[in-house]
């Protein structure tokens, strides 16, 4: 899948390939638009966001299209990462140590693979709620085509769209906080792609070890 070498000649480690970064930002930017326009429709207190986005009428027209774009990105991510996001037996020990992880007592947290169990939760959360948002969103896109004798489907869709939206917002807040403020180096990894060796060793020890082992066997 990825032909770029992981151990870079400048002594750094490739964390995310160009393809991975591109798809990540395809999802990220479309989600940001969906979030902002969605918040405008969510509460009258934030309806002004619609004005900022060239008018709420335009936002209503574009929101579904950005939803399609987002779901294409999610599908590409699934194709790219689903295998690495699978639950492993060691995940439980990591979750048991989540308190240490939150308190930054990282020496007491079991070593993580390429993606730690929290990242796996983020991935599957966005995957599942993304599908729910897509299905309910298609109904909300064209309510006039839902026949009146099954109009309860429209109401169910409104409710599911709201609930799923809130779950993704929760995931999004934590993801953005961790990716920017909390884990120094993480944001660079998804922009430029590389991290320091110490970073890889610290945050994804099992993955880093595997990289080193592979590189020594190749030599």
């Amino acid at each position, binding site marked *: 899948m990825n032909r770029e070498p992981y151990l870079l000649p400048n002594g750094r480690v490739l964390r995310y390939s160009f393809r991975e970064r591109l798809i990540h930002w395809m999802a990220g930017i479309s989600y940001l638009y969906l979030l902002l326009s969605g918040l405008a429709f969510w509460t009258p207190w934030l309806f002004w966001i619609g004005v900022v986005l060239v008018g709420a009428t335009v936002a209503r027209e574009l929101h579904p299209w950005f939803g399609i774009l987002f779901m294409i990105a999610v599908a590409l991510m699934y194709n790219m990462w689903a295998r690495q996001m699978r639950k492993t037996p060691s995940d439980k020990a990591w979750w048991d140590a989540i308190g240490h992880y939150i308190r930054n007592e990282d020496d007491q947290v079991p070593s993580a693979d390429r993606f730690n169990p929290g990242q796996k939760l983020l991935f599957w959360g966005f995957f599942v709620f993304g599908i729910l948002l897509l299905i309910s969103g298609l109904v909300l896109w064209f*309510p006039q085509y839902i026949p009146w004798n099954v*109009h309860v489907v429209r109401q169910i869709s*409104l409710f599911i769209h709201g609930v799923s939206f*809130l779950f993704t917002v929760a995931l999004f807040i934590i993801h953005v*906080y961790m990716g920017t403020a909390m884990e120094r180096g993480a944001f660079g990894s998804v922009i430029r792609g590389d991290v320091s060796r110490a970073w890889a060793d610290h945050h994804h020890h099992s993955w880093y070890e595997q990289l080193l082992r592979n590189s020594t066997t190749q030599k």
Partner: protein
Amino acid sequence: MSQAATEIVRISGHAGTVPGAGLNREFAVCKLVDTTTCIGCKACEVACLEWNGYTFTQTTFDNSYQTMPETAWNYWNLIKFNEHEREDGSLMLLMRKDQCMHCADPGCLAACPADAAIVQYANGIVDFQEANCIGCGYCMSGCPFNIPKFSPKARKVFKCTLCNDRVSQGLEPACIKACPTGCLHFGTKSEMKELAETRAAQLRDHSGHRDAGVYDPEGVGGTHVIYVLHDAKHPELYGGLPSNPRVPILVQLWKKPLRWIGNFGIIFGAVGVFIHYLRFGPKIVKADEPKTEGEGQ
């Protein structure tokens, strides 16, 4: 309202009482549709189109008098026909003028996210302000009567205004004006309610319609369009009039508890991560410089 503007409170240099002072004027308007005297002539439909500037649209044929299945964005008023077979085998041709009911508790307004796209006036009229409509169609999901309709061309939603433009000038709605049998009445809510009840009692006592009654559903807080039905126990017979309409429970849950839980959750989350940062700070990677080169062997 326009009536309030002409109500006198004080008069300068005037001896004696102020004319009309203390008079209790009712602003709530109401349209009464007596289905028992409707002949299905569709004059109200034509008057509605004329007044609101729409042209007659192509009709469909479904082996009955029904000219089209339901109201449309440019066709706000439609007679619903139903050939109903009674228990004794006799036929009744039920005709009901279908239009916006102007609910006291409007589901469309509850569901709408756009600032001032739906306005409820003190006289009971619920009116769409298309200039503010964003075309999301949430009102179509909130309405229990299948009234708001989406215009694919304008990309906005339209419905009956109860001729707000006429009523605010002291005129009756166009449909009322056109009705040749007098089955349509317009006045204050209490007047129309009284008239409807009188007619229903007449039907019960003198015409053998034992279940005759008035349709003014409480689930939506009453409506500003009310019906007299021969059979008030089965409003569904009249072209699918819901027997207990209400603002859909899922719309209520979404707009009240879910929104508050959500708003609280979003603020809690944003503040929470900030406090976490203040308390625990970033995750520091020791020796975050590539000087641990030789650790491989």
